[in-house]
């Protein structure tokens, strides 16, 4: 009997989009994609594209919320109506689901941004989802990390995030929309150098024996993403150094300084 539902894993061990179970979707990272923001980035993972713009540190819009010893972080998430198929006139920002995603992003980054360096100020993170095929939260977190780096706000470490699902004892990485709906899934985000986790979110049922395996797999995947992100950041920094002509100035001074990575 043929069913119209997609096969999560077919006989050849491939998922519905022809990926292997541990294969991540094709990713692209771009920095400085917003013309007026202090820091911005656009991250595409598979068919999910998210653009994050960062404004700050700046005067808080609401003085009452200012904190005397650290910066406050505001996150706002908006989607385009066509983000996940569908379309037409519907709520694009401010609804419960988006507010929850915003709150998760804020909780993920609050321990990582060095807020004590920016007292009495506000950092605003605006997330715009341009197309979604599963993994809005992981992609938004990855994009926010890059946007923070692009804006020059001090952070402790790269935060990368991934979703992990489980299909009959086989964990799957980087879920698409169809897989997210059908499988128990776990979203984690971690500080890649120190292996600490700042977000672990799961809203489905999962057997406790499987949890550790999935968690470790997710940590490995986060490290891989971090390596890719770092390549882009270094490439961008090299361009800036070149434009500033810093290399030639330093080499013309016989000071023996090396440009450190």
């Amino acid at each position, binding site marked *: 009997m043929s069913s119209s539902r997609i096969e999560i894993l077919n006989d050849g061990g491939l998922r519905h989009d022809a990926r292997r179970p541990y294969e991540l979707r094709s990713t692209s990272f771009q920095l400085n994609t*917003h*013309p*007026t*923001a202090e820091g911005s980035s656009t991250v595409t993972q598979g068919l999910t594209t998210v*653009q994050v*713009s960062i*404004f700050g540190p700046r005067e808080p*819009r609401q003085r009452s919320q200012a904190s005397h010893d650290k910066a406050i972080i505001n996150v*706002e998430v*908006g989607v*385009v*109506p*066509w983000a996940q*198929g*569908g*379309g*037409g*006139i519907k709520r*694009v*920002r401010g609804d419960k689901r988006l507010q929850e995603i915003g709150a998760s992003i804020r909780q993920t980054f609050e321990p990582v941004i060095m807020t004590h360096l920016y007292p009495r100020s506000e950092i*605003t993170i*605006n997330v*715009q989802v*341009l*197309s979604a095929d599963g993994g809005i939260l992981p992609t938004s977190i990855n994009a926010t990390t890059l946007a923070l780096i692009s804006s020059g706000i001090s952070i402790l470490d790269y935060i990368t995030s991934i979703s992990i699902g489980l299909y009959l004892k086989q964990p799957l990485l980087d879920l698409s929309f169809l897989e997210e709906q059908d499988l128990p899934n776990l979203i984690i985000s971690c500080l890649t150098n120190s292996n600490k986790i700042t977000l672990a979110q799961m809203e489905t049922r999962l057997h406790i024996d499987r949890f550790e395996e999935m968690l470790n797999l997710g940590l490995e995947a986060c490290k891989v993403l971090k390596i890719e992100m770092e390549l882009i950041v270094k490439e961008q920094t090299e361009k800036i150094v070149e434009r500033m002509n810093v290399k030639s100035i330093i080499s013309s001074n016989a000071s023996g300084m090396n440009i450190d990575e």
Partner: protein
Amino acid sequence: MSIPVLNLSPSEISYIQTSLSHPEQPTRLDGRSLLESRGIEISYDIFPHANGSSRVKIGNTEVIAGIKLEVVDFDPSSNIKKGTESWRGRVDVDITPQSFPFSQPNTLISLSTYLSSIISTQFLPSINSFKINSNKYFQPQLHLTLLSFDGNLLSSLILASRSCFSNLKIPKIKLIQWIGNDNDNNENPNGIIGKGDLSGIKAAISLKKKNNKYFLSKGNEDWDLDLDSGDYQDGLEYMKNRMNLPILITLNLIPNSINYFIDATAQEESACPSKLHLFFSNSDSNEETLKLNGIRFEGGQSIDSSRIKGLIEEGSKLAKTLINELNSNLPN
């Protein structure tokens, strides 16, 4: 209600105004001439799920737009006031916080409402109805998202709306049912195929018997999508008259000067808040002259009424160039 502007100091404002109003050599901050626009980038089909979509970028002002077609009921014989029919399009503008980072959320919401109502009253009326059958129509629902702002907002939104409708593909329709006359003296009460000439599965299932008469029960349709038709065998076609959709030319006026300029950046808009918005479209009958679809004057500055005619003529020339350029680059 006006668009949030940057706070410029009096000397900045004076610097911009005196450069722009110079009688012989007016200069702008980025070296353009007064009637020169920044480069316009338009791309189509950016949302595959939408019936039509586009992205417009004028300088650093970026707008993305999409249309979804919904099926609505409309009874042509009812006395609905023209302009409020249910098949008229709906529009919603989303002003993202990253486009106006210094504004409160309330300002953004009221700006969204204000812009949606302008587009609804000045642009949508020129869209004709998309009829399916006698009482069903396709209603276009247009949604615009402003991703970043650097001046010339309303023009960009109208241009994005126009591009989106240029890219809109309407599904072709075929009728699959015809019900004959409901005569009382037709004697064939048995059998599903009773009165009239019915074809199509939908029609056959729909026929019910009540009080010795056959009738079409609610919820069934007598029309269906006509896939595999058309030039590209996909059952879609572009809307008619997409070359005659309106565009907007905004003439920015300079206080105490007869000069005016187009495509202001955010700084120039802050220094010269008065604007004359002119909506133009191609005329169906006359190839040479354009039709003027609407005028809005905002900013608080008053101008000599004798200037209006000259401004409209100048605006019309600029509009003609833009419309010709757009029409020669429509998606096909």
